[in-house]
């Protein structure tokens, strides 16, 4: 069996911006090869929580453990170096640039021509094409712009990029919220593939059926607090939907069964 210690563990996280308490004691643990869905209505604190996990914000109080060690992530770069990659809903890729330039952005492969360092497009493109094939995207040309891909394909490219560069924890911010049914199913399949590789996926959504399709664990956030965590099979669509809107304790729901 896999080791039982969580990859990332957040305990009793508080975050306030001035007088506004965005998070009021949130605890969550992320395990290898597990898709952990974070559900909540708009304003529940989902985006604040993922920004803490990805190092954009630092918690006001509470503890973050990565691989069992207490850690304070000072910035996104530090999070990336610790194996935490975040794919933001619309900030993932640059539509005017080619798929290849996007994929390698910030980590370009280079080679030397005499004293001059240039990008190694041949190598970049061939690795890109094989990675895209693995994840099920038919690219006509590595130089075609990201803008020519569908929304679902863009999400998939962004996920493939994060995993290729060694993400152990992949945070997906509303990856399906702007997509149609067909594209959503493709993205969910990609999430499935990535999880099978042993990557921990944090799937943020307010769409319960998308979450149920891929999730192993479900944590519901409401008004900056966690209402509890349930395993797949322990909870159904109506209960999750009810919690997101009705703000009831998970335990109370379970007991009522």
């Amino acid at each position, binding site marked *: 069996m896999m080791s039982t210690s969580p990859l990332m563990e957040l305990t009793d996280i508080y975050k306030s911006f001035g007088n506004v308490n965005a998070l009021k004691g949130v605890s969550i643990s992320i395990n290898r090869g597990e898709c952990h869905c974070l559900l909540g209505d708009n304003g529940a604190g989902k985006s604040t929580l993922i920004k803490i996990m990805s190092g954009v914000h630092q918690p006001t109080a509470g503890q973050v453990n990565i691989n069992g060690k207490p850690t304070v992530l000072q910035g996104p770069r530090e999070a990336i170096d610790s194996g935490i990659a975040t794919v933001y809903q619309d900030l993932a890729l640059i539509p*005017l640039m080619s798929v290849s330039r996007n994929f390698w952005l910030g980590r370009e492969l280079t080679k030397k021509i005499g004293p001059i360092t240039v990008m190694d497009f041949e190598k970049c493109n061939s690795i890109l094409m094989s990675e895209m094939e693995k994840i099920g995207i038919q690219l006509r040309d590595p130089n*075609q712009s990201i803008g020519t891909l569908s929304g679902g394909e863009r999400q998939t490219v962004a996920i493939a990029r994060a995993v290729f560069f060694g993400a152990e924890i992949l945070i997906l911010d509303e990856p399906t919220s702007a997509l149609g049914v067909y594209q959503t199913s493709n993205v969910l399949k990609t999430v499935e593939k990535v999880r099978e590789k042993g990557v921990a996926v944090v799937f943020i959504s307010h769409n319960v059926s998308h979450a149920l399709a891929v999730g192993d664990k479900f944590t519901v956030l409401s008004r900056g607090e966690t209402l509890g965590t349930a395993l797949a099979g322990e909870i159904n669509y109506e209960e999750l939907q009810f919690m997101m809107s009705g703000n009831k304790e998970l335990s109370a729901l379970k007991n009522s069964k």
Partner: protein
Amino acid sequence: MSINIKNISHIRAYFKNAMLRPDLGAIVGVMLVFLFFFLVAHDTGMFSLEGSMNWGIVSSQFIIIAVGACLLMIAGEFDLSVGSMIGFSGIVIAVTSIVWGWPVWLSILTAFAVAMSIGALIGYITVKTNLPSFIVSLAFLYILRGLTIFIAIASTKKTIIGGINEFSQNDWLAPIFGGKIFSGLFEWLAEQGWIQTFVAGTKAGQPVVSGIPAMMVWALGLIIFGHFLLTKTRFGNWIYASGGDAQAARHIGVPVNKVKILMFVFTAFCATVFATTQVIEFGSASADRGILKEFEAIISVVIGGALLTGGYGSVIGAALGAIIFGVVQQGLFFIGVESSLFRVFLGVLLLLAVILNTHVRKLITGSK
């Protein structure tokens, strides 16, 4: 049957890719412009060696500032202070060499250092305040022009400072900006009777074109440097990304602020190259030099297919835009068209280019 369909779709994909080249419009534009003037002006001497030098030099001037403006625009920023920077750098060279008696090479290097520092300052203010560079550089358009006139008048009581050629003649650095290369070759060509010589005056017997001006060499060098940097290096990838979506680029770890500031520095460098070539060639600096150059640079870049919003464009396109600019401006002179009409043409061309670019942008990003 299926092979046929596949072929057709390949051909369509090919044409769609060609359509998406940022410089396609400028390539077609250059061909049309040359075709037009070849038809209407072939007997005016416009395409003789001397005539070609005429529009070639004007185009080179536009190219020098367009390359800087192009990379900066792709990085998502503008610099409206380019024209004022040209006047400012020229006066710095003139005041330090003529009034203060510095050697010309030191004056030139000082002008570069001062101008590039101001470029860095404009960039720094832009990225730190998050204000549009349009406004920040507009402020510097006035600040630099005002300082230029003030320094010229305070030090010499004139706005034109002349007499630099006396000092620049034996300087080691000045010829790099004001000299001519292949002079020997042109003299030899004249001796062979292959190019014309002056028949009268002080220059009688000398070839009408005595060499390739340094300005043209600079223009070519900057095109090669800019194109290489943008398309072949990882820094070029960061330039595209900084202009395409600065926030997304930051998330992935691209040093967006550094990229943008460096591009402001490069624009200032190009403006100073322009200023220095003019000072060395004319032997004088004038406080009003460079007026409207910032717009001419931006127009060349836009005709070259770059998007005003950043993230997309081509150095080759910008250079072709500059050539269209230079050829039309001088060509209208050759065919004797009232020169004020050039501005009308330019305005129309700019409008058409922007509309075309916006359409291409929609094709690329897939937005309707």
